[in-house]
């Protein structure tokens, strides 16, 4: 197994991967601490929450690439799994506020506002981080498993599957919007103070969360590489290309799809849980249908079925988004739409595809 893992990359590939990790978790923090404030090398504190957010998006893109890029199942509902992980973390963070809320009560503020007298049963346990941790690991995957079981069993495919995932995320958004559901209604969960006793306002906490996110992303990148490079991964791409052939070759494709779908949701849930303490809020808008579509676009733009493409795509699109929201907020959606159309029509292999094509060309030129 260790041998298999080492063989995932060439030496050069591993060096590159580890350098990226090193830059992320060592160099950038060092530049923050040691580079003088006015130097252009200095990375200000607030940047780390932003980087952390991007890394969470990258993790989402990685998860979507597994199910869409490799297995050919387009999900437009990953916002749900992201939100489930996010809400679980949010509930823990709400409980950690303790009596420091506006109403100085044991209960979260929004419950006081609704005139609730006691904690609903489904909030029990969230004062414990361990409990929350397991909910984060289990809930999104479990939800995905149940949903996927029925969808794949009824052999719902392609566009139809994409549409029901949109319906799923829309339905859950409406549910979470209701105040009575008990997750803070349209305001969601916010005003967090502490995580594991550390203040969320502290730069050191933010930095730690960022570093943790980078490490988690690295681990899941290696896991995903392992998955797609195993025979399991070859079966997934085979399902994407010709599911009938796979079934007639003796594979239970339902199980394969269900497995990767659940893994994908699991990863996405963890991304959501890491995201919430870094942005300081989770609300139902995370489950807007358009949110999930945007996630799929990250992967399409970066390039499907390569893993690295997903990571690059998440970075590029969100980088552009950050720029647009400052410079021209009204035009962001137009830009996104056009970008998606251009990529689908002219660069089906995405950004990464353009590069590998250039590289092949260059090699060809050298040889000729």
């Amino acid at each position, binding site marked *: *197994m260790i041998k*298999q893992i080492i063989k995932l990359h060439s030496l050069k590939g591993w060096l590159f991967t580890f350098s990226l990790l090193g830059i992320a978790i060592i160099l950038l923090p060092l530049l923050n601490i040691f580079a003088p404030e006015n130097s252009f090398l200095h990375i200000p504190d607030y940047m780390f929450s932003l980087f952390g957010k991007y890394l969470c998006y990258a993790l989402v893109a990685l998860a979507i690439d597994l199910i869409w890029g490799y297995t050919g199942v387009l999900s437009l509902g990953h916002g749900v799994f992201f939100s489930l992980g996010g809400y679980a973390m949010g509930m823990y963070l709400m409980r950690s506020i303790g009596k420091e809320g506006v109403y100085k009560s044991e209960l979260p503020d929004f419950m006081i506002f609704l005139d609730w007298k006691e904690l609903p049963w489904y909030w029990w346990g969230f004062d414990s981080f361990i409990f929350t941790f397991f909910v984060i690991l289990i809930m999104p995957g479990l939800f995905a498993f149940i949903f996927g079981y029925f969808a794949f069993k009824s052999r719902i495919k392609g566009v139809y599957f994409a549409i029901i995932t949109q319906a799923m995320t829309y339905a859950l958004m409406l549910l979470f919007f209701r105040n009575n559901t008990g997750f803070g209604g349209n305001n969601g969960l916010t005003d967090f103070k502490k995580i594991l006793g550390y203040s969320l306002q502290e730069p050191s906490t933010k930095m730690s969360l960022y570093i943790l996110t980078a490490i988690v992303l690295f681990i899941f990148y290696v896991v995903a590489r392992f*998955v797609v490079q*195993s*025979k*399991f991964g*070859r*079966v997934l*791409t*085979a399902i994407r*290309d*010709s599911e*009938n*052939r*796979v*079934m*007639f*070759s*003796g*594979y*239970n*494709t339902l*199980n*394969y799809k269900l*497995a990767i779908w659940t893994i994908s949701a699991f990863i996405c849930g963890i991304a959501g849980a890491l995201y919430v303490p870094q942005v300081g809020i989770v609300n139902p808008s995370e489950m807007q249908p358009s949110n999930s579509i945007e996630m799929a676009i990250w992967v399409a733009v970066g390039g499907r079925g390569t893993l690295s493409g997903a990571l690059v795509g998440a970075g590029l699109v969100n980088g552009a988004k950050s720029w647009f929201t400052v410079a021209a907020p009204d035009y962001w959606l137009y830009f996104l739409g056009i970008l998606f159309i251009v990529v689908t029509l002219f660069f089906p292999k995405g950004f990464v595809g353009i590069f590998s094509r250039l590289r092949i060309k260059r090699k060809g030129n050298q040889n000729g």
Partner: protein
Amino acid sequence: MDSSGAHVKDDLIDTRHGCILYIEEVTVSFDGFKALNDLNLFVDDGELLCIIGPNGAGKTTMMDVVTGKTRPDEGTVFFGQNLDLTQMTEFEISHAGIGRKFQKPTVFLNHTVFENLELALHTNKGIWQSLTKTLNGKQREIIEEGLETIGLKNQKNLRAGLLSHGQKQWLEIGMLLAQDPRLLLIDEPVAGMTHQETEHTAELLKSLAGKHSVVVVEHEMDFIRSIANRVLVLHEGHVLAEGKMEEVQNNPKVIEVYLGS
């Protein structure tokens, strides 16, 4: 476990009466149109059976029914005397020992020739196995032999999408063999093949009979003539005639159907 993949489930299939496949009174309708109409068809264990018939006769639909892709509206399909195929899923049927080559060659275009055979190879096809196991020496050997048999040794690291039509046909046949099934259903194997390739395929299929049972559907009459033992003519979802090639060819009903179409 014997990973060479010799028929693990052999003893599960009851062929004591000499028959391996029983299709009885099967009817399949698509929106009222009967693609198979009260079809009765039996395949002897170890025989090479050829099925001919005009376009739309229901040949492919027959294979769909046997492999679980289409469920019959009426009738029964048994593998051996004991396995009711109408109650099994596609992959269970494949596990039981039925392999199929599609009319339109269906191989994994983005995988290499070698990987195509690897995926087909008879082995444990569970998720955990796929995730953790790599090919052992014996299995590599089987794949290499397979490459030899289908004449694609030099193309083994080539993406299957880059193969010629005939080569894809062979690759698919190779995948079938790697699956090591008891019964092979082969739909139009020589379409798009050169004369030489066709001859080679005929040799290959003939060599399979005995060890495997083989059902071949083909329009190419010379090819059928070169391999056929028993021939069966399908027409409008029903068996019109059966017998030796010459008998069938001289059967007035058959002549009428073919000239009429």
